[in-house]
């Protein structure tokens, strides 16, 4: 058997997986998004593109904008927290580097739902934080954390932080440490060295982390459901509602399709930029 043939054979399981569990459901979603429901709420295949008109109904605009806004805020927060953490691990981790990376990943072994659920106990009106605040005499009637945008964004940040840390860590770890010394050698202060040397050298990692956080954050429904309320619902909650409460599969599928198309645009931009960077690195 030629090496080529063998290589394509090894691709088979993965390809089968993709077709069965990704492409087929995607096709079904796409088909249903043009469908209608009967009196009993069962989805029927049909040609009813009006589902898509509804997606862009001004009624839903706040939800869509909110989703993008929350996801963008999540990316910003993850970057603000994640870059210093990655920097510390990569530059000063020494022989504890891998342990520290493992600690970053560790919470991910626990289901996202459970981890966010834990926050409700911490942030609720009678929760841990308010208890401590009251004991310290800082408040008497409790601070409202839940059902605020910040609770939702905080949940998203907490949920996806590792997706930001890991690629930035990898970029920092790959970076030639002499570059930082070269910066200092050429009269740059610590901040200037970061600004003009380290940041540009690790920018691809920042980009990768931002995409990895942004994509799942836009479509997330867990954080808003557990930590937020109707005022903070995101498109993921809307979709979930259509499928499980309103029993309107076609509209839910149309929302899903539009969301995926939107994310795909991001993906394409990112992949093109990453591909260009990789090609340049190879040259």
């Amino acid at each position, binding site marked *: 058997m030629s090496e080529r043939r063998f290589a394509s054979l090894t691709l088979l399981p993965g390809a089968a997986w993709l077709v069965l569990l990704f492409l087929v459901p995607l096709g079904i979603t796409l088909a249903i998004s043009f469908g209608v429901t009967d009196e009993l709420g069962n989805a029927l295949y049909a040609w009813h593109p009006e589902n898509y008109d509804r997606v862009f109904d001004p009624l839903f605009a706040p939800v869509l904008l909110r989703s993008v806004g929350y996801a963008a805020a999540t990316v910003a927060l993850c970057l603000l927290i994640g870059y210093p953490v990655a920097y510390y691990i990569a530059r000063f981790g020494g022989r504890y580097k891998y342990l520290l990376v493992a600690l970053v990943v560790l919470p991910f072994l626990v289901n996202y739902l459970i981890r966010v659920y834990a926050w409700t106990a911490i942030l609720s009106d009678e929760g841990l934080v308010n208890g401590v605040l009251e004991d310290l005499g800082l408040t008497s009637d409790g601070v409202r954390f839940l059902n605020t945008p910040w609770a939702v964004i905080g949940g998203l940040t907490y949920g996806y932080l590792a997706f930001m840390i890991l690629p930035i860590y990898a970029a920092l770890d790959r970076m*030639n440490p*002499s*570059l930082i*010394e*070269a*910066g*200092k*050698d*050429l*009269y*740059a*202060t610590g901040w*200037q060295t970061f600004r*003009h*040397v380290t940041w*540009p*050298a690790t*920018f691809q990692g920042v980009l990768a982390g931002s995409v990895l956080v942004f994509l799942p954050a836009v479509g997330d429904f867990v954080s808003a459901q557990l930590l937020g309320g109707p005022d903070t619902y995101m498109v993921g909650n809307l979709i979930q509602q259509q499928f499980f409460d309103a029993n309107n599969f076609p509209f839910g599928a149309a929302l899903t399709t539009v969301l995926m198309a939107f994310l795909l645009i991001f993906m394409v931009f990112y992949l093109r930029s990453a591909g260009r960077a990789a090609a*340049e*690195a190879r*040259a």
Partner: protein
Amino acid sequence: MIDGGEAIRFESVSKRFGETEAVKGLDITIEQGEFFSLLGPSGCGKTTTLRMVAGFEQPSEGRIFLDGQPVETVPPYQRNVNTVFQSYALFENLDVFENVAFGLKRRKVARDEIRRRVTAALELVQLPARSDAKPRELSGGQKQRVALARALVNRPGVLLLDEPLGALDLKLRRQMQLELKAIQREVGITFVYVTHDQEEALSMSDRIAVMDAGEVKQCGQPEDIYERPRGEFVAGFIGISNLLEGRVEDSGEVAIGNGLRIPAPLPNDCARGDAVQISVRPEKIAVQEIEPGMVSLEGRIETRVYLGVSTQITVSLGDGARLVALEQATYRAQADDRWEVGQRIRIGWRPEHCLVLR
């Protein structure tokens, strides 16, 4: 070129990393305008020494003076010193011009002057045409030139070079050695040059410090080091082979294993019975054509290797002692077909070409 005045002074400088003693009791003064090389095998502490001058490491003991001023409290970005890194460490996101301009921009030099000085620096390293190329588009030699220009453009008091030619192929290395030396003469900046290549150090330097395991074994001009190496390590490292074990005799001769006595210029402090090694460089050994006044021995040709411009023959003196001779192909003879393996011949050398090591 060397205008006196000290550029760098090390006073009993030591550096420890945990258990490792990377540099031990370094006492060297480097003059202004000097091309000074640190020569030694990998791991002997050369890079650590440079990094202490640049300010990336602090000495565990002792002090370093730049221009007569102690520098322990001066951070790297305020030292009047620039480094050419072995890995070049060019900034990939900046083009050649911006790389070279980096230091001047941080020092807030005026825009016009930056342009002028960067252009001049790129001309100095013969790379003016590539000023808007990105580093990844350059060959290894060109990257090397950019790294050099990026450091020199700042007109530092001292330029530190850490095996700058290490990644280049041999031919390019030889060419860059000549260019580096010419550039150093032109700009008159003190160069501290780290290398493990003895030929490179010998051909470029005003002075060389040979290091071993964190210690300077010998410091002097290339001729000193090559002609009068102090100790076995230095001799071995700069490529001296042809060592014969022996013992000092009353007569001022050295007795080698097979009972032969060889007249040699003994150092003053040699006493009778001292164990020494003698060495004669292969190119100083005459084969068969012994001249009056030479020390001469008889031996048997063990191997003969034709090297083109010369022929290398190994002569066995009996009892395991052997010497290698390099015979140049001169007008006198065609060296390659004069000798046969197994042939008995006489070899000889002038007594002053014999080196005694202890």
